[in-house]
């Protein structure tokens, strides 16, 4: 990758290497075909074959998905509502991945954020004005999420310990701790099933207009766009990206790599905490013991496919939510097992991955 573009290079060796490969640029259209449209079509065809094998008409199945998730009012509202926590997680991962930190512990951070907001918000109702209850809930969730990343952050920043391992381990601990807290500390004494106190519907995030869509969607969109702008347009973002792209160059340019690493962890885990709060304060109202939607790991492939680009990730999150909502209902109505959603999602991811691979391969050939 050192000298592949520079046919006019004065370096004679580079020239020799260049002239070896005749550059034939594929059009942008062809690239889009290989990386996005093609794989999506392939994935639906693949799933269609599986559906036919189990004796279900794939067209009916796909028809139900579309009808339920996008063309029915309620379904569309559910799709939009589901997007909110996913968007906050996208924001969290964009910061981390662009800064070269593989924060795979978002599930633990998410759940602890959710639990702390569910534990405090109902108690504050009546004490503080409605908006302040929500602000405190979100702020505490962000704080707790960030605190849960301190150990991996310090280990990474000062000892170079691989954060993939540490964040994953902390995530398991976080999920269990969240469940324990619900059962032992924050349990609502008035219910038999272990769960936290419930935030009354009136005190949750306001709904949008006359619909059932939570305004968490708006905050999630704002979060992703802001994070995207921060990472691409500000000096702070460039510093983080530089540490991610080449820590040696960052040190050379006088940046404090350990401090910026800590900041990345704090921000990323904070947004994961916000994601938890948005689900609780916007939709669920409480946390039941053993509740773990595992959105964090779900979002990772989307962020990768969007190449850490905020807008791209928003689009993918939208389709992903629609797929989740729609296929749940389609599966129920056609008697296909619930888990077929996962088959569809998995073939989608595999095909998109293959598309990337083919694209890489073609580009290498062009050189």
């Amino acid at each position, binding site marked *: *990758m050192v000298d592949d573009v520079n046919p006019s*290079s004065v370096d004679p060796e580079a020239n020799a290497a260049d002239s070896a490969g005749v550059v034939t640029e594929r059009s942008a259209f062809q690239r889009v075909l290989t990386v996005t449209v093609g794989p999506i079509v392939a994935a639906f065809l693949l799933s269609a074959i599986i559906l036919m094998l189990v004796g279900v008409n794939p067209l009916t199945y796909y028809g139900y998905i579309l009808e339920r998730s996008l063309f029915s009012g309620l379904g569309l509202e559910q799709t939009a509502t589901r997007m909110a926590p996913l968007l906050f997680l996208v924001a969290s991962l964009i910061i981390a991945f662009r800064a070269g930190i593989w924060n795979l512990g978002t599930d633990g951070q998410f759940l602890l954020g959710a639990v702390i907001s569910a534990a405090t918000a109902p108690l504050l109702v009546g004490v503080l004005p409605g908006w302040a209850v929500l602000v405190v809930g979100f702020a505490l969730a962000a704080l707790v999420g960030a605190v849960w990343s301190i150990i991996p952050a310090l280990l990474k920043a000062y000892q170079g310990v691989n954060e993939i391992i540490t964040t994953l381990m902390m995530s398991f601990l976080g999920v269990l701790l969240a469940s324990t807290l619900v059962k032992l500390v924050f349990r609502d004494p008035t219910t038999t099933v272990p769960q936290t106190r419930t935030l009354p519907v009136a005190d949750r995030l306001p709904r949008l207009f006359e619909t059932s869509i939570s305004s968490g969607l708006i905050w999630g969109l704002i979060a992703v766009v802001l994070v995207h702008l921060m990472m691409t347009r*500000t000096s702070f973002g460039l510093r983080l990206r530089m540490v991610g792209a080449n820590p040696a160059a960052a040190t050379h340019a006088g940046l404090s790599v350990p401090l910026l690493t800590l900041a990345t962890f704090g921000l990323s885990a904070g947004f994961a905490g916000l994601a938890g709060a948005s689900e609780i304060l916007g939709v669920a109202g409480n946390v039941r013991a053993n509740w773990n939607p595992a959105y964090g790991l779900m979002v990772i492939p989307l962020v990768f496919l969007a190449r850490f680009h905020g807008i791209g990730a928003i689009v993918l999150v939208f389709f992903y939510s629609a797929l989740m909502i729609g296929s749940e209902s389609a599966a129920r109505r056609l008697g296909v097992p619930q888990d077929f959603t996962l088959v569809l999602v998995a073939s989608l991811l595999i095909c998109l991955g293959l598309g990337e691979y083919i694209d890489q391969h073609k580009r290498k050939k062009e050189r």
Partner: protein
Amino acid sequence: MALATENPTNLSPETGTGVIGVHGVTKRFPGVIAVNNVSLAFHPGEVHVLLGENGAGKSTLVGILSGLQEPDEGYLTLNGEKTRLASPSASLDAGISTVFQHSMLVPTLTVLENLTLGAPWYERPPRARIAARMEELKREFALSLPLDAITGELSLGQQQQIEIARALLRDSKVLILDEATSMLTPQGAQELGQRMQQLVKSGLAVIFITHKLAEAYRYGNRISVLKQGALAGELGPEELKSMNEEQAVEEIVRLMFGREAGATSTEHRASSAREETVLKVENLSTQGDADVIGLQDISLSLRAGEILGVAGIDGNGQKQLAEALAGQRPLASGRVELDAEDITRASVAQRRLKGLRYLTDDRLEEGSVAAFPISENTVLKDIGQPPFWINGIERPSLIARHARDLITKFSVRTPGETTPIGRLSGGNIQKVLLGRELSGEARVVVFNKPTYGLDLQNIDTSRQRIADIAGRGMGVVLISTDLDELMALSDRIAVMEGGRIRGVVENDGTGEALRLRIGRMMAGEEENRQATE
């Protein structure tokens, strides 16, 4: 030393092409010719020393012989027949075993297990047979190894013995020892030297790679000197025998550091040094560790408009000195002054603002972020500073204009400022980085190997630029491993060896005499000359 004279003459190493022949081999890597048309023959019964500085092409040659790399041009012969070593196993099958600089053993396995690694999976380790062979090896070569010890718990010298034993168990014909003494104590190195002589007496060919001059003479029967990828000269067994150590070292220094025939003769630059001192370093020391050499008690001063050359074989602390000056490396003790102002505690960014600039030798891994466009790379050291950022918000159009100006001013060959810098050639990346360091008010510029890996034309322009910078009244610290370059540009030359400054010489234009004086200091020989046993 007595061993060097015990050359086994009955094996008549002078005849034929030897067990392995290297014929006109050339190997290129992006932007560098690592090995340039080298022909060598390795003979049984000889310790053949490949001597050269880092980057002289020794390791690439080892890579080619051990099947890790294949030559772009030229070919290898085995017992006179043309052969291809396409993989490490092909090389092993050809009877070539390599002991690499860094251990290739599994530290958690026992010695026996390590010795049997690579054997067919369906066979039980033939313990009795290995034990018997080891007994033989112990008698012949004084290799004594506890077969059941855990490898990681043994000393580095013993681990190396395991690798040699492994090669012997395979009945190798050629043993390559890559920088084998670098991790040994002097005592251990001497034992290795004796062992090599015992090995060649049994009919093996030993290829011994080193950059230490004295070792080459003491342990080798034949010395080939590599310089910038090409063969600079060879000393055969007869020649070596007829010299004493002093003469041999003299001759090797001449081969390694002497002016090669046909090199462009660069005129010695007229000095532009002024009175005022811009940079003063007193008793600077840094902490070293296993991988990084520590600096000891470095004192220097630099006047405005002066070029202070820093000579030395690569890896003797030059990079650490540059990093310490730039503020990238913490000091254990000492003091640094810029324009009579104490900057010992100043950060990298503060030093840059005050006018101390550092152009790193590692253009791609440290100097730039390969995936970022040229435009961003031109401002990486000014992130957050006006005018390119206002209140932390980036101004892409200003950065792009700045980058375009720099591209024009330094004639960078690129399709545009949005091209990722990693796609440029080494010379063009160098121009971008130079432009970045010279923007604003520079007072002192530290260049680390500024022309390393560039082609001739870019070397000339870079040298001209460095001379111009000094001419404009800035102080220049020029670190280079190229003596011609230092002698063409510097006012004075400091010679580093082992993390210390061995001496500072005026570049008085005495040419060859000065060159050899510096060469000896670089080899650490001036002080160690008397250490010969």
